[in-house]
């Protein structure tokens, strides 16, 4: 599948944003961090910027961005529509919880309800994003039990890395935060490893024989494609550049999202501020970069069933 930069940026940025907002809401509700206005202001501002920037960038690849409002209408059948509805609905508790934290200096009373709603909607939005891909039976690599957990894990991982880094800046770090980071790292590693093993070892559901109905004659191969030049379907679904480098890119992604963050978090989170702040910040940047590479691979490695008609051996 062709990896559109706007979609890659959207899903990684908004994932990190929702993860960050979720952790602010959860830690704030649990009373595990002080409701410090400046701490909250930076966290909510970064989370909102990541989420909003991502949502805006997702409209860049549309043919008619001015009609994007229509995407709110089909939530009964479409996960893309549900994602839009949930993403927009998240802004209401986001604003109210941020008001409670930054202005009122409290997440108690009604503000605890807003914070809880914020946490639930953050999770729901990322879940809907994952479901857009997981429900596509045409793309074997995405129609996978690890697709939605993968989206949720990367949102939590990148969100927790940023949360940890911001907490260090304000001196509000706790061992619990580092524990969440480490847990997110290992769960993400497990999920992504399972995903990669699964897509490497299971064949797609369809074959060239079933795609043409000609299997009774024996193996089917393409003699002539319909046209000499690549058409829309081939350009959109037949992207093969990264597959050649898939193993190398998987290692790069692993180093960036797992190895660097776990080493830096382990080595620096108990250190003094002048080491811990850059350490956790670099861990967050590296984790985010790793998520971008992973998301790029998620697209580039995915094969589409329609390519069977264009000579693909598997789909």
């Amino acid at each position: 599948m062709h990896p559109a930069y706007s979609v890659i940026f959207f899903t990684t940025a908004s994932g990190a944003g929702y993860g960050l907002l979720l952790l602010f809401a959860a830690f704030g509700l649990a009373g595990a961090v002080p409701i410090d206005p400046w701490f909250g202001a930076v966290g909510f501002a970064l989370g909102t910027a990541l989420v909003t920037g991502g949502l805006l960038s997702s409209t860049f690849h549309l043919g008619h961005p001015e009609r994007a409002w229509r995407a709110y209408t089909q939530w009964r059948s479409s996960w893309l529509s549900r994602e839009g509805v949930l993403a927009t609905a998240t802004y209401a508790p986001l604003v109210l919880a941020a008001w409670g934290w930054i202005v009122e200096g409290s997440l108690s009373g009604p503000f605890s309800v807003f914070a809880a709603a914020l946490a639930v909607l953050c999770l729901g939005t990322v879940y809907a994003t994952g479901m857009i891909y997981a429900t596509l039976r045409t793309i074997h690599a995405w129609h996978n039990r690890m697709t939605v957990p993968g989206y949720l894990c990367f949102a939590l991982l990148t969100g927790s890395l940023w949360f940890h880094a911001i907490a260090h800046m304000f001196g509000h770090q706790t061992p619990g935060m580092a524990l969440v980071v480490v847990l997110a790292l290992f769960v993400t590693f497990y999920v992504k490893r399972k995903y990669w093993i699964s897509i490497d070892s299971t064949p797609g559901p369809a074959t060239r024989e079933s795609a043409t109905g000609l299997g009774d004659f024996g193996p089917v191969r393409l003699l002539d494609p319909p046209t000499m030049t690549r058409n829309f379907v081939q350009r959109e679904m037949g992207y093969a550049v990264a597959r050649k480098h898939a193993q190398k890119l998987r290692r790069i992604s692993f180093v960036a999202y797992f190895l660097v963050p776990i080493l830096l978090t382990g080595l620096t989170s108990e250190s003094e501020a002048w080491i811990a702040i850059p350490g956790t910040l670099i861990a967050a940047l590296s984790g985010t970069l790793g998520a971008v590479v992973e998301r790029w691979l998620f697209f580039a490695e995915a094969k589409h069933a329609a390519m069977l008609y264009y000579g693909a051996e598997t789909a």
Partner: protein
Amino acid sequence: MTSLPPPAAKKLGLVIDLDTCVGCHACAVNCKEWNTGGHSAPLPDKDPYGADPNGVWFNRIHTFEAGTGTWSRTVHFPRSCLHCETPACVTVCPTGASYKRADDGIVLVNEDACIGCKLCSWACPYGAREYDDDAGVMKKCTLCIDRIYNENLAEEDRVPACVATCPASARHFGDLGDPDSDVSRLVAERGGKELMPELEYQPVNRYLPPRPAKSAPGCTGAEARLEPVVGPGADGAGRFLRWVDRVLSR
């Protein structure tokens, strides 16, 4: 509404005979010609005489080799929208632009509501939807909805453009929901195939596989071995003509 309508009794679709298709691309050309002035007009046609011609086509003809060795077959394979009974291209649409008609099952795009997100093209396993980057909307086969119900056309012309033009009569149009229709009978007789049944989109269109090859002597009904016209024993060929034949055969 991108939720699917309840299953309709009428299922309009195509039956394509892979035995008689000669791969001439006339269906694709006539489709393009009709539809660039029809329901989804215009269809982009970029750099048509240049190095990288491209544009939207609803119909594309692939050529496959099926089987190996002596018994392999060269099969020309026209591919277009199959107007599935459970089309995920419709249900994934976030805006309601993609829809399946309740009356006859035709899958269409309302171009005024399409935001051009392309998700429907990802959801189609048959590669039937093509994006028009001039108009910023998705386009697809309409089963020539502007021909089949068009009372301005003579009755025999109220079939999809691809069917009307096929010089080999390899394309048939009709109601596959009616078991007694001509197309349904054809499918039953010839063992019409559903493409990629494992994905469970329940396509309406059917493909008739090539008939078994006939290469055994005598299998066509003609004499297994023809007598030479001129030669010993042939009536009417005298000594002189046999001599002429020998000389000319050198």
